[in-house]
């Protein structure tokens, strides 16, 4: 307390203190570019392709937000972050939005001061092993050497799971997915554990993908979603409702193919509100009426993004599972546009 009084006195002499992130929307607009934190490279979620362009499931969220706010899905500066740098990058304002398959947890939301705007992928932590080890269940992993990506919730889940099942293991902490993959392939660890989606993506990149299998156990809940700083509710709302627009569009059957036609007006008032032909939803967000139409035009609705990046048609071949629309028995559910 005393310290803060002293510093407060010094602050008077110093510069007037603005507050960071008071108006992220204005910053983004004046910069003309959205700074979006992504992973350093996880195929399917966010990775630069051969020509250096970022693509993936998380990348699509960034692009949709950029299109909604700036009108251009390419007006994104992708900032690669590691498990270590991602939170500081967001809280210090280096990035405006973090879409780096980050798990929504209590302490990150409350203690670290972030706002998770929703969930774009329901995941859980799984294990990958070589088939020829003959392991059928994670409970048989006693004494195994396990590669983990450090700085993630998986590291903690792993310790908890093995302790509660009273089995021992040797952790090998690794900084990036790429190196974990190398270590696992070289046989330096018997098991690789991370989010099941990440495992599927990693396995898809293997030469002999069939020689590896995912164990049936999913040992944690990992709701992954984009997040923004606490304290700028307008910006949080924009990101949240851009994500919801992608989800709602799939539910309502709005795709990148029929969006132009639907934008002319339909009989469904919710579609009309979403696409801005009815109501004032865009203005309430501080955007124009066509924000959601632009967001959807970049890479389509949630289902299209899923199918294009990680769906069954891609090498990663993830089934929708929990990530199907609620109408299809999944958990993907957007509040109504009203």
């Amino acid at each position, binding site marked *: 307390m005393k310290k803060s009084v002293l510093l407060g006195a010094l602050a008077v002499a110093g*510069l007037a*203190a*603005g*507050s*960071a*992130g*008071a108006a992220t929307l204005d910053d983004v607009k004046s910069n003309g570019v959205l700074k979006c934190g992504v992973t*350093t*490279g996880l*195929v399917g979620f966010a*990775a*630069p392709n051969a020509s*250096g362009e970022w693509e993936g499931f998380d990348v699509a969220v960034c692009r949709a937000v950029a299109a909604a706010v700036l009108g251009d899905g390419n007006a994104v*500066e992708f*900032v*690669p*972050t*590691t498990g*270590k*740098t991602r939170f*500081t*990058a967001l809280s*210090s*304002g*280096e990035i405006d939005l973090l879409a780096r398959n980050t798990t929504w947890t209590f302490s990150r939301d409350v203690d670290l001061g972030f706002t998770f705007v929703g969930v774009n992928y329901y995941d859980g932590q799984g294990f990958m092993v070589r088939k020829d080890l003959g392991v059928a269940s994670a409970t048989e992993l006693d004494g195994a050497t396990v590669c983990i990506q450090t700085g993630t919730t998986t590291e903690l889940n792993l310790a908890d799971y093995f302790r509660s099942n009273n089995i021992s293991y040797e952790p090998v902490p690794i*900084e*990036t*997915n*790429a*190196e974990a*993959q*190398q270590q696992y*392939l070289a046989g330096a660890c018997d098991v690789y554990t991370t989010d099941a989606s990440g495992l599927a993506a990693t396995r898809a*990149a293997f*030469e002999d993908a069939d020689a590896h299998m995912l164990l049936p156990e999913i040992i944690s809940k990992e709701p992954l979603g984009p997040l923004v700083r606490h304290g700028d509710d307008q910006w949080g709302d924009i990101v949240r409702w851009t994500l919801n627009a992608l989800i709602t569009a799939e539910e309502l059957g709005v795709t990148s193919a029929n969006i132009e036609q639907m934008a002319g007006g339909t009989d469904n008032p919710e579609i009309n509100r979403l696409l801005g032909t009815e109501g004032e939803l865009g203005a309430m967000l501080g955007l124009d009426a066509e924000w959601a139409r632009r967001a959807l035009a970049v890479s389509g609705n949630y289902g299209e993004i899923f199918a294009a990046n990680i769906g069954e048609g891609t090498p990663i071949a993830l089934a929708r599972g929990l990530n199907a629309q609620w109408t299809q028995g999944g958990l993907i559910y957007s509040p109504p546009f009203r």
Partner: protein
Amino acid sequence: MSDQHTPAAVAYVRTETLPELPPPASEAGLVKWLRENLFSSIPNSILTILSLWAIYVILSGVIPWITNGIWDASNIRECRELLNGASGGCFAVIAERWPQLVFGIAYPQDAYWRPSLAFVLLLVAVAPVLFSNLPRMLLAVTLVYPFLAYWLLWGGSIFIPITAFGGAAIGYMVYTRLVAQSFAMGLLGGVVAALLAWWVFGFITDNTRGVLALEAVASRDMGGFMLNMILGTVCVSLSLPIGIVLALGRQSDMLIIKWICVVFIEFIRGVPLITLLFVASVVLAYFFPPGTTQDLILRVIIMITLFSSAYIAEVIRGGLAALPRGQYEAGDSLGLDYAQAMRLIILPQALKISIPGIVNVAVGLFKDTTLVSVISMFDLVGMIRGPILASTDWSGVYWELWGFAALLFFIVCYSISQYSQWLERKLATDHR
């Protein structure tokens, strides 16, 4: 004397010189050399045999690996097929990813000539500094180079570097006018004039954004070996003046200034660079004014510059301490003030004997720029560890990539250290 020993008189005296016999086979040519240098004693012979064995082991592994190398393949599987079980390197990865290794993933491809030109000009610009027998006219290139290189690498309107140079030139002119009164006055006046000029020129550059503009490239898009080179040159050049000031401060009689410098230098030298880079990546952003952010490369440049300036300060302090006391006293007795004595007498000599040390620090620093890969920047090592080894095409190609990286660094660092040794020999005029 001569007639007594005429050939007729003494028959047994040889009249002509015998032809020189070749030395015994064991004392000449290759054999002698071998005996003296390799097999002079039993331990020596054992050493020779051990060395031969080591050389054989290394070469027998490396030579087929290089000669069988595949330079043309699109991924590692194709490469292995072409090799067909023979041991050979898959150098195709270097051929295919060459631009990424050198320029990073995001630098625009049609602008690769810009960093290449900047690199060539760098050689021209440092040459007159390194070799004193080159024409002094070349120093003009050195002066212009920082501004030119900035324009080439980052792009944008040419007016930005031109006005930056103009401001600096005006500052220098004011400095030369005022320095006659006192050094502090000159420095202050120069800085103020330069700032004023930049402020005025700011109006010009704001309105000429598109004039003669190269495509602008963001700092974040710099990568590969280019990033190592940029960090190395920028940080070493920036840390030189800071290092000089710190060294003078540490030698100073003024207690407070001395202690500020001592604490700073010892703190920086006491912690590993990687912790300073962590500061740059996760802590430093909190120390900037609220609402502003600086991009990572700038924060990293700040921290590496602080790091190397502490080391350079220690080298220069060594140079200052090595000067005989008489030089300081000579300056005093001529009635020079502190700034004049330092500028005209002490520093030129001290810097001259510190050059080899400074070059060593520079080499070390250049090698240390690879650490930025740990904080998720895509420099040469970061490119290899991240995008290239992670890609489906090239995962598992280790030795070729690490060998390539090691070779690049070796070439640069070895040439610089050879230069430093040459310079040391050249400067060592007083010892022998």
